C-alpha cells in the first residue's frame, strides 16, 4: 500500500499562516465586489473551513486558487450588490502651497465625492480590480491570481474602469 504523505496544510501553524496571508485580501476582494461586510466575512469563514476539511487534498501551492474558487462559488448566486463604503485618509502633509488654498481644497473635496459615486457605478469586476490596485497596492500579477484571469485581462479591465470613471466624473 502506498502511504499518502499528508499535506502540510493540515498542520495548525501552516493553516494559521495561510490565514494571515490570504484572509484580508480575500475579504477586500469580495467587499469591493458586493459592498457588504457580512458577506465578505462569511466568504472568509466558509472558504477557510472548507480548506481545513480538505486540508489533506490541497497541496500548498494550490491553496490560493482553492480559496478563491470556493469563495467565488459561494457567492455566485448573489447578484445584487450594495454601495461600497470607502473613506479618504486625511493626508494633508507634504502639500505645496498652491494645494492648500481654500479654492483648491474645495475643488478637491468635490472631486473626491464624484470619484466615490463613480466607483460605485463601476461593474463589480472593474471595481474590485481598481480598488485592489489603489487601496491594497496589489500588482496586476497578484490581481490576476485573485480574479483568476490573465494579466492582460486585468489590464483591460483596469483601462475600462478608468474610462468609465472619467466618463461619470466629467458628466456629473
Amino acid at each position, binding site marked *: 500500500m502506498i502511504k499518502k504523505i499528508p499535506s502540510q496544510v493540515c498542520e495548525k501553524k501552516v493553516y*494559521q499562516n495561510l*490565514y*494571515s496571508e490570504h*484572509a*484580508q485580501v480575500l*475579504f*477586500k476582494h469580495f*467587499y*469591493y465586489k458586493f459592498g457588504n*461586510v457580512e458577506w*465578505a*466575512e462569511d466568504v*472568509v*469563514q466558509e472558504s*477557510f*473551513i472548507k480548506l*481545513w*476539511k480538505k486540508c489533506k487534498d490541497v497541496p500548498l501551492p494550490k491553496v490560493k486558487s482553492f480559496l478563491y474558487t470556493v469563495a467565488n462559488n459561494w457567492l455566485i448566486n448573489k447578484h445584487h450588490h450594495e454601495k*461600497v*463604503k*470607502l*473613506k*479618504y*485618509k486625511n*493626508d494633508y502633509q507634504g502639500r505645496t502651497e498652491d494645494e492648500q488654498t481654500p479654492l483648491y481644497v474645495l475643488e*478637491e473635496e468635490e*472631486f*473626491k465625492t464624484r*470619484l466615490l459615486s463613480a466607483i460605485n457605478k463601476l461593474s463589480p469586476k472593474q471595481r474590485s480590480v*481598481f*480598488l485592489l*490596485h*489603489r*487601496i491594497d497596492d496589489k*500588482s*496586476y500579477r497578484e490581481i490576476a491570481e485573485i480574479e483568476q484571469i490573465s494579466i*492582460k485581462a*486585468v*489590464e*483591460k479591465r*483596469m*483601462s*475600462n474602469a*478608468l*474610462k468609465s*470613471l*472619467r466618463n461619470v*466624473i*466629467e458628466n456629473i
Partner: protein
Amino acid sequence: MEENYKLAKWLDNQIPDREMQDLEGFDTYQKIKKISQDLAAPNLNEEKTFQQIEFRNIQQKSNFKVFYKFAAALALLVGVASFSLFFAAKEVVTLSQTQKIELPDQSKIQLAANSQLQYNALTWWFNRDVSLNGKAYFEVEKGSTFNVETPLGLVQVLGTKFEVDATENQFSVRCFEGKVKVITNQHQEILEANESVFISNKNELKKEFIPYNQPFWTDAHVQLNAAELKKVVKLLEKHFNIEIDISTISKEKQFSGKLSTQDLKENFEIISSTYQFKIEQVNKNKYIFVEDEEN
C-alpha cells in the same frame, strides 16, 4: 488594442506621463490616479473571524466522532475486533451520584449527578478533548490544550482547576486555579482564578467573583477566603435549601475558613463561634442570626 492596455500601464507607473499627455481627458485621469491613492476601506477583523473559524472547525471534528463510533460498531459487527481498538471512545453517564474519573494523563474529573461525559482514551495523548453535557469539576494536569466541548460553547485550558456546568439552555464556568478561556459563538472570555462566567441561551454573559476554592458538591469541606457574610449566607441557603435572616446584623463581616458541605449544624457552630452570633431556628427551614449582646 494596444490603446486598451495603455491606461492601465500608466496607472501602474509603467508608462510615464509625457507619453499620455495628448490623450483626451488626461487631466481627469491624473486626478483619479492621485486622489484614489488616499482611499481607505473597512478591514477584516482577522482575530475575531479566525476564532469563529477555529470554533467551527472543532465542532466539525466532534461530528466526526459520531461517525467514528458508527464505524467502530460496524467493524465489530464484521468481527474485526482488533480494529476497534483504534476507537477507544469512553462514555460516562451519571444518574443520581457523582463519579470520579481519572484520565490517562492523571487529570481528574468529578462528574456531578445527571451528567454525561465523553472522551477518547487512546487518542488522549494527542488530543485532550472531552465533551460534556451536565456539570463537572476538572483538575487538569499541565500539557497541551485541554478542550471541553459543550452544547453552547467551548472551554479551553492548559493546566488548572475549574468547573463547567453546561446544558442546551445554559452554560457556566467557574475557574478555581490558573486560567481558562471560554468561547461561544458570540463571546470569548478569559477567566482567572476565582472568577466565574454565566452564559444564558440568549447569549447574555455575566461575570462574577467567587470566594471559594472548589465547588460545594465535590468534597466534604470547602475553603472560603475573605467571603462577605452575605455571600456565605447565600451559599448556605442554596446548598442546604434553607432561609437565613441576617437583617439584624449591622457590621460588615468577612469570613475565611472551612465550611462543611454535608453538615449544617457544624457550619452554624463555626460561624457562631467565629463571630459571636446566636443562631436561632424559626421553623423547619428558617434560621435567624443575631449578634450576641454580651460581647
